[in-house]
């Protein structure tokens, strides 16, 4: 497996559960959505979406196709500006922020249809993620002043360290677009982690992966949470993944939250079963 070192000092007390009702969140939650909603010309794509995610919680967002799951991600990352409601990230209001500003505040994401910088190398993809971590000006870069060498060295080391989570150091110099599908998904997660987020949004991380790859991904998601002490929210259709690792699950249907709770609660929820399988015919 990977050489990634498990650092005990970095451990954060977890899980601080929030989605699950009747539990206190000890610290400021990583994310709070209050009456969040967006309308596209009268169509309420997401309506009255309330969600709280604890500091080190792994939360799942599930729902039938077209339920508005990716729209929620796009609202959180400000690709769309919400028409209603508030988003608080670590207690800070994100209204009026742009996509790049909200990333600097601590939200990183991956995409349903992979969006890598495909003509660049794997290492450079991660270094782009480190853009706001290893800072120097363009002039320092052109003149190759000492700060350039210092930060480039640090960026290289950090990129390699991050790539080692998924055992990808050997592909560091490969072109990102030439990687196999699964590896591209993993690289997207590494790039998102490089931005030093407090909340990581994964949009169908297991899509297109075989069962053994999915199992490995599950382990890695938990490991990322433990090591970095961050909150993770994921959209996924693979129920084995969601039910196994998500501490809280939120079910969305036609833009509305129909259920929230633990895996067990969701599995036995009548409304959820109905949304997925349709109404039982009355006998």
């Amino acid at each position, binding site marked *: 497996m990977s050489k990634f070192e498990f650092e005990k000092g970095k451990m954060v007390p977890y899980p601080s559960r929030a989605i699950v009702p009747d539990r206190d969140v000890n610290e400021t939650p990583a994310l709070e959505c209050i009456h969040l909603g967006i309308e596209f010309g009268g169509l309420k794509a997401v309506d009255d979406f309330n969600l709280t995610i604890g500091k080190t919680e792994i939360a799942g967002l599930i729902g039938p196709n077209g339920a508005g799951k990716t729209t929620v991600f796009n609202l959180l*990352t400000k690709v769309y500006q919400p028409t209603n409601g508030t988003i608080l990230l670590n207690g800070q209001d994100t209204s009026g922020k742009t996509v790049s500003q909200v990333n600097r505040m601590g939200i990183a994401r991956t995409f349903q249809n992979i969006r890598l*910088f495909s003509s660049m190398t794997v290492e450079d993809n991660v270094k782009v993620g480190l853009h706001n971590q290893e800072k120097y000006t363009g002039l320092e870069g052109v003149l190759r002043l000492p700060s350039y060498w210092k930060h480039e060295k640090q960026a290289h080391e950090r990129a390699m360290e991050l790539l080692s989570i998924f055992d990808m150091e050997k592909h560091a110099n490969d072109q990102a677009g030439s990687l196999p599908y699964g590896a591209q998904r993993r690289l997207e997660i590494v790039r998102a982690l490089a931005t030093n987020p407090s909340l990581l949004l994964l949009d169908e991380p297991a899509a297109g992966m075989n069962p053994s790859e999915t199992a490995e991904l599950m382990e890695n998601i938990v490991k990322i949470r433990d090591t970095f002490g961050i909150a993770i929210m994921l959209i996924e259709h693979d129920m084995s993944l969601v039910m196994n690792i998500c501490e809280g699950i939120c079910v969305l249907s036609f833009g509305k939250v129909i259920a929230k709770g633990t895996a067990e609660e969701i599995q036995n929820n009548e409304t959820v079963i109905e949304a997925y399988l349709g109404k039982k015919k009355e006998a």
Partner: protein
Amino acid sequence: MNFLKNKQTRSDFITYGLVIVAFLVVFFMQANHMIPRMFAGQLVPITAYIVMAISLNLVVGVAGDLSLGHAGFMSIGAYTGIVTAVSMQAAGAPQTLALVVSIVVGAVFAAIAGFIIGIPVLRLRGDYLAIVTLAFGEIIKEVVTCLIVGVDAHGLHVVFNLRGNATVNDLHLMDNGIAIIKGAQGASGVSTYSTFVAGFVLIMIALVVVLNLVRSRTGRAIEAVRDNRIAAESVGISVTKYRMIAFVVSAALAGAAGALFGGNFSQLSATKFDFNTSILILVFVVLGGLGNMRGSVIAAAVLTILPEALREFSDYRMLVYAIVLILVMICTNSPQIQGFIARFKPKKKGEAEANV
């Protein structure tokens, strides 16, 4: 020589080496009068076109914005450069100093113009951006055509010939004054001040600036925006800022190239910097390869020499030129020919295994 282990660094130093060797060979030939007369006058324009190609490659190849108005920045550089150089020479400054200052002034004015034009233009992308840059290129040409500039002991005199009836006399110059730019006639009667050595130095500066920029944090951000704008935003990169940096740096280099170019001609009118020039430079960039600076240098040099070398075909010159261009484009894009060339390259370890 440890730093040469990095593939990109090695590639950069090959490019520097190539330019230095080419310069030394040409400089030696020039010193021994071995250069045919028809090429001797082309040396400075070649260096200016090479810098233009490098500068446009930063916008088109690295930042991925198709700009069709680059000759506009070149003309801004050329005219501000000429005005600076002539004023300085009139004040008694040595020629070399006048040349250096005029190049710097040309670069600064072109950068300012690049910034102002960049604000509306960089809100667009793709075809729309291409068309708007084309329009701005033409606007700059028309504005320059209206410009009448002269210098005397009181400083610069500028008149905008908007009605078409203003002449040099409207500058009200003193007796010892010099009219530098005379409207549609352009700059004429100016003593040339550009040198081949200055052109070489400018190429090296342009290469160092662009290559070092591309290999830095800023350059990676610019490339990231080109590859995937949405993903670049999602990792905290301000898209407009980095497109603007590429655009302004490119405009500044184009202005410097323009100042060098302008100093090579005693007669220079704004029509030299029309749409055809923008397209010519774009041809250098595309032929040399998008994002490939070494390719741009070679393509600019070869394609500037080629029309001169084809003079013996007289009337059919441009026809042969076009055919050569088409053949080169077909050849560099043909998989068969690429495969044929690849046979002579030593195989990489990974590739050799994959081919088994």
